[in-house]
């Protein structure tokens, strides 16, 4: 028992095995991204203002360079297909909000090298609402656009 422990300690201490493991990304696999933890405050915010604040985007500028694809009328609020395509250079982050949902933030994505600011997702809408996409660039500027979606049958409760 003691032998094994000693060997292990020696192994770690002696020759930078630990730092090698760190460098290889064994111990910390995805430190590329700024926000690793689930942003509880943002997801539990009950209105758009609070949710925007929680992601650090108090007043995003309106932008026509974000293309928000959403149906004008969604018959089933439980499954509403949404696409967000950001034509803003260096898009590093996209968040998607449904303004009248009980919890407006639906999902957010951070992009690293190579990933395009282009996402597709299916969300629930509680009722007819505006859907808003917020884009953050690599240098920390926020942009936003929104689109109204009519919902015939809501998709939240039952």
């Amino acid at each position, binding site marked *: 028992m003691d032998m094994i422990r000693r060997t292990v300690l020696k192994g770690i201490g002696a020759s930078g095995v630990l730092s090698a493991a760190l460098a290889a990304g064994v111990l910390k696999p995805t430190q590329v991204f700024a926000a690793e933890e689930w942003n509880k405050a943002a997801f539990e915010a009950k209105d758009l203002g609070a949710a925007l604040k929680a992601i650090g985007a108090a007043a995003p500028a309106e932008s026509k360079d974000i293309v928000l694809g959403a149906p004008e009328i969604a018959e089933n609020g439980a499954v509403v297909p949404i696409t967000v395509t950001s034509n803003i250079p260096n898009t590093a982050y996209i968040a998607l909000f449904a303004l009248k949902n009980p919890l407006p933030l639906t999902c957010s994505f951070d992009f690293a090298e190579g990933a395009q600011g282009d996402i*597709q997702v299916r969300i629930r809408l509680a009722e007819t609402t505006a859907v808003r996409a917020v884009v953050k660039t690599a240098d920390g500027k926020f942009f936003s656009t929104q689109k109204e979606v009519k919902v015939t049958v809501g998709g*939240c409760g039952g």
Partner: protein
Amino acid sequence: MADPMKIRASLKGDVADIRVLVSHPMENGQRKDNAGNTVPAHYIQTMTVEIGGKPVIQGQVGTAVSRNPVFGFKVKGAKAGDKVVIKWRDNKGETRSDEAAVA
């Protein structure tokens, strides 16, 4: 353990178009079952997409994402044969990881 994800990654030029269908109930904690009891929340909170060993996308997901969610991403600079690994973790701490190759 949840069912495997269905991952499809197709190359268009040098951009990989990644589509993933995740098998997950995504209970939002507001739905009631037939007996009128509230079904407890059970939903994916975080997910990552790695391509060729490099993490490229990190997603955070709330209760408003539909059941058995579908996600689509585009990643530039991918090559045919690159391994795509997608992982998720839900609010109960369950995780799953699946992979596919860019074709």
